[in-house]
């Protein structure tokens, strides 16, 4: 007796998956690819700061304050003789923590609201839309500034307040996504089989909606860098001796005419980070949704 062996292996798809195609498109976009590499480098710098930085961010060398670049201090020193290169490296850590943490918090608040509004429609959607309407009329950056000024400043609070004030965009986007998804056949099929709603919302629908949400998150990062560095620059954000690019800018402005490096180092850091993140975000958008490209750069 010879058993008939049946090949039970599932048929593997020969066509490349969604993310792989997106990655291929992203790779072809030179500007986006270079920006992506810069983003990775900045993130690595932030994570590995203690290993890379030549000095601690608070080590003072008062004899060499406001000095230009030298062998000891490659980018010079600030008013307390702290090494600017080290502070820029540690600054990447604080700046990136806020720049990524705040939009993440906004996503965590906004996406559930958007999902519920888009899925349930009717009364829920009505309430959500009125909420959107009201919060559109509230200038977010001023709200964040007021909260930070009133409740004090630490990295955690900066993330909290910037995050709270950035939920609106995520909620809008998630709502639009779920409205366009909720009448699809596979949702009906899932409901017919008796899949619980929360499972449909999270396991079945979220993967289809997550692409644009991730892109939005990445595109929010430069805006958050702008705001958080801006607050630190106004003297509202991160406090001494902690290093942050905006804080360094604030320290440097008083010595603009004496030592340009104190201003130029944080300026270049902020510029590099915001540019890299936005080119990278644009590239991701074009890669995931090629149709969005049509109007922007046909």
């Amino acid at each position, binding site marked *: 007796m010879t058993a008939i062996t049946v090949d039970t292996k599932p048929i593997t798809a020969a066509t490349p998956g969604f993310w792989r195609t997106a990655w291929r498109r992203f790779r072809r976009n030179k500007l986006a690819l270079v920006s992506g590499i810069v983003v990775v480098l900045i993130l690595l710098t932030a994570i590995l700061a203690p290993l890379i930085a030549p000095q601690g961010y608070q080590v003072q060398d008062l004899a060499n304050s406001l000095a230009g670049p030298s062998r000891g201090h490659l980018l010079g020193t600030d008013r307390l003789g702290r090494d600017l290169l080290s502070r820029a490296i540690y600054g990447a850590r604080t700046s990136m923590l806020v720049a990524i943490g705040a939009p993440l918090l906004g996503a965590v608040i906004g996406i559930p609201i958007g999902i519920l509004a888009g899925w349930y429609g009717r009364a829920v959607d009505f309430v959500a839309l009125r909420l959107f309407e009201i919060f559109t009329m509230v200038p977010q950056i001023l709200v964040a500034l007021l909260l930070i000024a009133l409740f004090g400043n630490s990295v955690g609070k900066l993330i909290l307040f910037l995050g709270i004030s950035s939920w609106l965009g995520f909620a809008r986007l998630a709502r639009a996504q779920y409205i366009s998804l909720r009448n699809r056949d596979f949702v009906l099929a899932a409901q017919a089989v008796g899949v619980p709603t929360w499972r449909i919302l999270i396991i079945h629908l979220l993967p289809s909606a997550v692409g644009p949400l991730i892109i939005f998150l990445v595109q929010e990062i*430069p805006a958050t860098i702008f705001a958080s560095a801006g607050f630190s620059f106004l003297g509202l954000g991160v406090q001494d001796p902690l290093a942050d690019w905006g804080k360094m800018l604030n320290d440097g402005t008083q010595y603009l005419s004496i030592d340009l490096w104190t201003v130029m180092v944080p300026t270049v850091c902020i510029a590099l980070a915001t540019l890299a993140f*936005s080119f990278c975000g644009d590239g991701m958008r074009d890669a995931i949704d090629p149709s969005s490209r049509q109007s922007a750069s046909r």
Partner: protein
Amino acid sequence: MVAYLAKRFLTLICVMLVMTMVVFALMHAVPGGPFDQTQQPLPKPAMENIMRKYGLDQPIWRQYLNWLWAVLHGDFGTPFSQPTMTVTGLIAQAWPATLIIGAWTIGISYIGGVVLGCIAALKHNTWVDRILTSTVSTAGIALPNYVVGFVLITVFGVRLGWLPVGGWGQPQDVILPVVAFSLYPLALMARYTRATTLEVTYADYVRMGRARGLSERRLTFRYVLRTALIPLITIMGPNIPNILTGSIFIEATFAVPGLGSYFTTASLHRDYPLILALVLIVAALWGTCYILSDVAYTVLDPRVRLEGLSR
């Protein structure tokens, strides 16, 4: 239309009321008060006197109603930080600087942005277009305006010495802040103009016109740009309050004594009356611009109908 406008403005007034309530509650929720940060701690009786003078010894809801009542009569109170002035006077003093910078910025960025966007679209797929869109407009959108400001200060203020580093009063003080501030809206306008113009350039009716032998100039100005520029007005509207609130950083960079800098110092020093007045102004301006841009949309594009408006 009147009913629609009335409804929108009613919402706006409600939003403003709620905002002032929230801000009021927030300010009082934080421990400490506006007079804690003086150089030497005040003796207790003096402190009590001050608290009584500004009504800070009363319950919160009472304080809020008092404030609201005064505001409805046009009295915004006395700023704690400058007791010799009124809030209205202080704002009247700070307003022009912000307004001048804002007006120049709006003018330059809107006109310049539209022109650059049109050039990019009409020279589509040439090097001009590529430089304008990929580099200039993205850089303008991505770079924080205070960063641009510091680059300008270092180049034109410190190195070349052509323009003042900061300050306010002389005519040339306006130049650098406006340039730094314009870059973002300029880039945004250029990007949108290019997109809408391109959309129209490839429309069937333009091809038809070209087939029938209309001159390129006539096609461009009468057929393409006319249609392409309509949607832009809706982008311009919401941008105006953006420009006015974004000026916080520009005013700090260039040491301009405008509304933005007062907002920062008032928030820091817990100057309750000043913060509330500024919040009210900003909210009113912000909301009005949104409403007006929604209305402009319907006026310019007959396909759009306002929600709740009878056809």
